[in-house]
């Protein structure tokens, strides 16, 4: 079963995790054979939001979809047997520490 781990950082607190922490975690995910995909996202200041209204008119605005304290900083998609295993991987993610949050979402299967 595939789960997406959405890694949110807080704009209020600085995540103390180092690049080495992230590299170590990434290596673990790869070596466990559960990695499907995953990326770290560029800084929030580079975000652009697009909407298309009923008449097909496009609106482009600077910044993220919603102004919140929690900022999506990256994601993994992992393939594991069940939610408990997914939660274990989420808990090990450096992004879950220091005021950060990892949201675990099953990927819909059709």
């Amino acid at each position, binding site marked *: 079963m595939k789960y997406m781990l959405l890694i949110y950082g807080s704009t209020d607190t600085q995540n103390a995790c180092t690049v080495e922490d992230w590299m170590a975690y990434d290596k673990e995910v790869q070596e466990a054979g559960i990695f499907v995909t995953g990326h770290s996202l560029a800084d929030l200041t580079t975000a652009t939001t697009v909407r298309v209204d009923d008449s097909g008119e496009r609106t482009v605005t600077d910044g993220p979809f919603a102004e919140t304290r929690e900022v999506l900083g990256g994601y993994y998609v992992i393939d594991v047997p069940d*939610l408990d295993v997914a939660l274990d991987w989420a808990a090990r993610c450096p992004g879950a520490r220091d005021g950060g949050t990892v949201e675990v979402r099953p990927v819909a299967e059709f």
Partner: protein
Amino acid sequence: MDERAAGTRASVEAVFREERGRLLATLVHRFGDLDLAEDVASEAVEAALVHWPVEGVPARPGAWLLTTARRKAVDRLRRDQAYAARLALLAAEAERTGGAVPEEADGGLPDERLRLFFTCAHPALPAADRGALTLRYLAGLTTQEVARAYLVPNATMAQRLVRAKKKIREARIPFRVPEPHELPGRLPGVLQAVYSIFTEGYAASSGPLLQRLDLAEEAVRLGRILHRLLPAEREVTGLLALMLLVHARRDARTGPDGELVLLDAQDRGRWDRDMIAEGEALAVAALTGGPPGPYGVQAAIAALHDEAADAASTDWPQVVALYDVLLALNPSPVVALNRAVAVAMRDGPAAGLALLDELAGEPRLRAYHPWVAARAELLHRLGRDAEAADAYRRALELAGTEPERSHLRRRLAAVAPPER
């Protein structure tokens, strides 16, 4: 349905109240699907109602039900393409076991209920639904009965259960017993689910009745099952001990008209001594062999009350000492409130009131009527009746059940007799 058939049905249903939880847990383990397990368990019981009165009750009723339910499940899976993969797994399993129904030492079905306890109380489910799921799937109550337990409309409860089941299925919350290293994180949730059923039965949060003993008894029954499944877990023992030591007072807790009788005014001759003895033995076991847990400590406090001949001769210094331990384990304003009341008994009402007033800033206590009522009581004992009356009026606004409100009205009348 004629009268005889109705009688058979009632007795078969009574017999399988206990077996049903096991049957359901076994089917869930096998098929990994609560809905399917529920449906085929019901169908198997229906089949039993048809066959047993004619053919006689089989030697191993549990195995008969499981075999029947399994056959029905396989039929259903065959009809449903979406389940093809699961069916293949099942075939592989049947090959391994030869299709035989395993038998436990006690002659019953293998007990898979522990898995189901952990699934129903999974931290990924809303805390408010965990007790309901546990009542539905482990105590075997119907959805209507669970709705009544939580005093919500049937449709509301049905919707909550459907939503919870959907999450279990779609997020794939597993049916498994956590590894020993995970237990400290997961067991408290299971204990909390069972205890929440007990406290709802013991002190209903609203409604005409103070106690709903059937619900408290259901919780005790679940506590016993859990204790049988995890005999070495001292907090499980502690929870069962606590429930028994409190439940032993059930008959003395309400007066002839259903009114609330507080601990200090209860007729202790009506306490259930056998249940107290059982609870005490379990409390000792819960507190032996390691640092105490919150349920073990609460059981010890309940045991001190149960042992005392009356409120005055209760070992209040020891009660306060145990609340200190509990407060360190579980720093909650409600525990601090109970400690303050015990201090009032040990050192007098002024000391207790000072502690209660220290808690005035706690947001969780502001609308919590026991805190307001405890203040009123101590103010009254200090002769500050005008303030006591104000506090009783405030508590009356907050109390949820009619027996609690009538108790508060009587207290209010005692400190502030109505003017003529």
